[in-house]
C-alpha cells in the first residue's frame, strides 16, 4: 500500500520531449515507474527512449491505458494540459511547473473536483511511493520503502528530511510535495486523510512553512487521527510582507505566521520540532 500512486499507476508524461520532461522521464523509468506514454505537439508518432509519443493524452489513455499524468509544459500552457489530462480520464495529475497563474490553478482544482481527479501541485516536486512508483523530479536515491508518510510544501527541504529519515532507517510509504503555490490540488488535509487510511503508514511528517493556513486546517483533522504526526515549519526568520521564494510563502496582513501554525499543531498533539535535523529523531522516538 501507499497513497495516490503505486505499481499499478500508468504514467503519461505531458511535454516528454522537452529538456526537463526528457531528463525526468529517464529518471522515473530508472526508478521503475511504469511510464507508458508521452505527449508532444511536434513529435507524435515517434518513440522517445522506447516510450511511444502521442499528440494527445486521450490517445495515451485509449492506446496505452494511462491513468495518471505528469505535466512538464510551460506555465502558460499548463491549464490546457491539466484540463486535457483530466478530461481524458487521468485520475492523478502532477503539475511540476511553477509560475502558473493562480486563477488557472483555481480552475484546474475545480475541474479536477468536478471530474473526480486528484491534482498534485502546481509548483511541486511531485510524489513518490518508494519502491513502487515515482512521479516527480526528486532524486531517486534518498528514499526507501517504510512506514513514514511525508508531506511537504517545499522540495529541497523535503529531500533533506527524507534523506535523514532514510539514514535513520525510517523509510517512507509515500512522500508528496504539496507545492509552493497559494492554490494547490492536494493540501496537508487531503494528504493526511489518505495517510490515516493507508495501512502501511504508521507515522506522518508534515513540513510546513509560513503563509496561508493549510497547517492550521490540517491541525483540525489531526485531532481526529490515530497516527502520530511530527511537524517542522520553516520561515521563523522571515519578515512580514516578503515573498520567501514560493508565491505562497508570505505573511500578509498578519496572517500565515509561524506562531499561529505551531500553536494549532501543538494543540492537536503534533510534535513540532525546531530544526529540520530534529525530525528523524522525533519520528524514531514516536515509533518506539
Amino acid at each position, binding site marked *: 500500500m501507499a497513497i495516490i500512486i503505486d505499481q499499478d499507476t500508468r504514467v503519461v508524461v505531458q511535454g516528454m520531449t522537452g529538456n526537463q520532461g526528457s531528463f525526468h522521464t529517464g529518471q522515473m523509468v530508472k526508478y521503475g515507474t511504469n511510464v507508458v506514454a508521452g505527449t508532444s505537439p511536434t513529435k507524435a508518432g515517434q518513440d522517445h527512449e522506447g516510450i511511444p509519443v502521442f499528440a494527445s493524452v486521450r490517445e495515451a489513455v485509449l492506446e496505452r491505458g494511462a491513468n495518471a499524468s505528469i505535466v512538464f509544459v510551460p*506555465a502558460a500552457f499548463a491549464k490546457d494540459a491539466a484540463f486535457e489530462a483530466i478530461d481524458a480520464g487521468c485520475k492523478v495529475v502532477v503539475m511540476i511547473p511553477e*509560475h*502558473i*497563474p*493562480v*486563477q*488557472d*490553478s*483555481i*480552475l484546474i*482544482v*475545480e*475541474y479536477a473536483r*468536478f471530474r473526480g481527479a486528484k491534482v498534485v501541485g502546481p509548483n511541486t*516536486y511531485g510524489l513518490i511511493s518508494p519502491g513502487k512508483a515515482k512521479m516527480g*523530479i*526528486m*532524486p531517486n536515491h*534518498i528514499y526507501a520503502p517504510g512506514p513514514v508518510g511525508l508531506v*511537504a*510544501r*517545499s*522540495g*529541497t*527541504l*523535503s*529531500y*533533506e528530511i527524507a*534523506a535523514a529519515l532514510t539514514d535513520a532507517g525510517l523509510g517512507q510509504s509515500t512522500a508528496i510535495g504539496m507545492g*509552493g503555490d*497559494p*492554490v*494547490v490540488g492536494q*493540501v496537508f488535509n487531503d494528504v493526511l486523510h489518505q495517510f490515516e487510511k493507508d495501512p502501511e503508514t504508521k507515522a506522518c511528517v508534515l*513540513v510546513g*512553512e509560513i503563509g*496561508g*493556513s*493549510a497547517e492550521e*486546517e490540517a491541525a483540525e483533522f489531526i485531532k481526529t487521527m490515530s497516527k502520530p504526526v511530527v511537524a517542522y515549519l*520553516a*520561515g*521563523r*526568520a*522571515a*519578515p512580514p510582507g*516578503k*515573498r*520567501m*521564494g*514560493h*508565491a*505562497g*510563502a508570505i505573511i500578509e*496582513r*498578519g496572517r500565515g505566521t509561524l506562531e499561529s501554525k505551531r500553536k494549532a499543531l501543538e494543540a492537536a498533539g503534533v510534535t513540532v520540532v*525546531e*530544526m*529540520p*535535523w530534529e525530525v528523524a529523531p522525533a519520528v524514531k522516538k514516536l515509533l518506539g
Partner: protein
Amino acid sequence: MKLYEYLAKGRLKAHGIPVPPGVLCRTPDEVAKALEEICPAAVKAQVLVGGRGRAGGIKFAQDPEEGRKVASEILGMNLKGYTVEQVYVEGKIDVEREFYVSVTVDRNARKPLVMASSHGGVEIEDVEDKYIVRRHVDEAFGMQGYLARDIAAEMGLEGDVAKQVAVILQKLYEVFRTEDAELVEINPLVVSGGKVIAADARLNIDDAALFRHKDLPSVAEGTELELKVKEIGLAFVQLDGDIAVMANGAGMAMATLDALQHFGGKPANFLDAGGGASVEPTAQAMGVLVSMQPKAIFVNIFGGITRCDDVANAIVQVKNTQGIPVPLVVRLVGTNEQQGVEILRREGIEAFREMSEAARKAVELAGEVR
C-alpha cells in the same frame, strides 16, 4: 504586481465601476491645469506604500494656485524610501457612508473570496469579524446575481444603495477575473449624494499572469539589490542581518535562515539559488552576496537536481575572479558530493556534511555566537 492608484481606478472605471474624476500629473503646472477642471481636488502621491496621507503624500487644493503649491511640495518628496514622481489629481467628494469591498483568493477554500463590510474606511484587519461578510465564488460558474444581492443585504444595506453595491460587486468580480487579480479592493467605497463611488482602490495583479496583460505598465517593487537579483532570475529578499546566505530551494533557504537565527546569527538575505541551477547563475548569485559585504557567507546545498560539483565550481570561479574577502562556510551533500567536496578542498575550502554544524560555524565566524 501592485498597480498605482490611478491605474487601479482606471481599470475599475473600464469595467463600469463609478470613480471620482481624476487626472495623472507629473508637474505642478499640470496639476494647476487639472484643477481648472476638477476643483476642489485631492492631490495624491502615486507610490506603492500604505499610509500616504499621514506621511504628507495627500493634500487638498481649492484652486489652481493652491494645486501648484501642494504639488511642488509632494512631487519629488521621499515617501518611505520612494521618490514621488507622479500625483493623481482627483475630485473631492462628500462622503456620507464608507463601505469596504474586495475580491481575493482564499487559498484554503481554493476559491475566490468576496469580502464586504459596511464598516469601511479603515484597514479590514481592524474591523470586527461580525461586521465582515465573507462569501466564496465557484470560479468556473462565475458570480451570479443572487450572491451580489445577498452580500449587499448581509452588509445591512437597503434600497437603491444595496442595488448599486450589488452591481458594483459583480463588476468587481469581473475585474478580479479578467485582470488576473490577486486582490482587488475598494476601501472606502463611499455613498456620496446617493451615488456609490470607489473613493480608493487597490489592484494587485498576479505576477504569474502578467504574460496575459502585456498592456499593463511594469511597476517594479523592491530594493535596488532585490531588483538586480530578480534579473538573474532568482528569488531574493534583503534582510537586516550580516550573514549572507545562499541555499537551493525556497523551503531550504527559509530553513537555513531559521538555523542561523537558532544559533544566534542574523541572516542578511533570503536567496533561493533554484532547484537545479547551473554554474553561471550560481556564480552570479555568489557575486551578489560578496558585494553585500557581510560578516560571513553561508552556502547550504542539498544536492538533488542541483549538482554539488556545479556549486563548488561556481564558488571557485567567484573566489578566483571577484575574490571572497569574508569567512565562507559551505555545507554540501547530495548529488556529486565527493567531486564537489574535492573541488573545494583543492581551493582550501572545507565543506560540511551536517547543516547544524555548518550553521553553527557560520554564526561563530561572524563573531556572533551567543
